[in-house]
């Protein structure tokens, strides 16, 4: 499979820069803001915001599959070391789980919206709280991979190629 990709650069990537962190903008931002708009919509009785949440959630769910595709390729080229290996495993497991969880949440939301777009049961807010918390955990794990362990940074890749890590 690897020979199908262009040669690897000094980030150990077949493309200029990591793409996964760019794609996850749209999962993180859309899913979290969707929950915030749901909360405001319920508390301040602004049902128009439910429509905004729905589209944001739908978009987040589409984006997570693209994020996983790039995430898998870039994880495969990341050469994790030390505790980063366990963090990357956990990040991968939660990532795939989130794809399922977000799909279910969106499906539930689609049914709710078809029934009454102006109402949102508290149970959905509860599920939204849990999913948002899971997303925050996932972001922290991803953050550790780059900001603590420097995976795919030029300095770490150079050290890896010299056999220092």
């Amino acid at each position, binding site marked *: 499979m690897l020979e199908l990709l262009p040669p690897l650069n000094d980030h150990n990537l077949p493309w200029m*820069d990591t793409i996964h962190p760019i794609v996850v903008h*749209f999962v993180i*931002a859309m899913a979290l*803001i969707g929950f915030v708009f749901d909360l405001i919509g319920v508390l301040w009785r602004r049902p128009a915001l439910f429509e905004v949440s729905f*589209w*944001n959630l739908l978009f987040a769910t589409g984006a997570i599959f693209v994020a996983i595709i790039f995430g898998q390729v870039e994880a495969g080229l990341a050469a994790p070391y030390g505790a980063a290996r366990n963090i990357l495993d956990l990040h991968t497991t939660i990532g795939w789980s989130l794809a399922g969880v977000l799909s279910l949440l969106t499906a539930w939301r689609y049914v709710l919206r078809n029934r009454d777009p102006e109402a949102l049961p508290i149970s959905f807010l509860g599920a939204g709280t849990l999913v948002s918390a899971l997303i925050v955990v996932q972001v922290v794990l991803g*953050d550790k991979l780059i*900001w603590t362990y420097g995976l795919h940074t030029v300095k770490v890749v150079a050290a890896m190629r010299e056999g220092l890590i």
Partner: protein
Amino acid sequence: MTTAAELLALAYQPESVPLEQIASDLGANGLPYALPIHPNLVHLTIGLFVIAIAFDVVGALYPLEKRLFRFLALPITRGGFHDVGWYNLLACCLVTFVTVASGFYEMLTAVPLPGVVSTFGLGSMTTMLWHGVGGVALLTIITGMTVWRGFQRYRWRRDMGRQVQWLYLLVGVAMFALLGLHGTLGAQLAAEFGVHIAADQLLQAGADLHVALP
């Protein structure tokens, strides 16, 4: 007559860079906390802005795509799309003030790896200056566009199906390119200059990562 270079030579005292005053409070990543804040808020700024513009485009092209959504059995309203365009942009504008503020804090505490030249052929100082000034410029444009969008929604185009002017969408799409360029500079500060990346800074200090980051 004293030249600027002579003045700089008089003023520049490497042994007392201001950052050293708080150096003992900072971790290996050069921050007083474990993970940088700015790159996380950037997810919100970029995600919200791009999706805001994208949904206003979908709202503007509504007559073309009506049939597609009917085919997908997905009930839609044109106003709903424009609601996404407005509320996401409003949220983007509010968040971006914090994004830029945290960015400045983290740039003031930045210690880029020495001797690195980026993919763009720039040094670390030039990259940080462009990323800093660019961040303020983008915040200004986003705030201006939010006010503009608000006037279109609540005044000028309140009774119209298409809530946004074509020029607004054009400026929005042009902003995608600016955000992409600006984001790439920020990504280079991390992945190439090692700013606030614990592993990069430890390697630069000569540490063995097997010991320093087990």
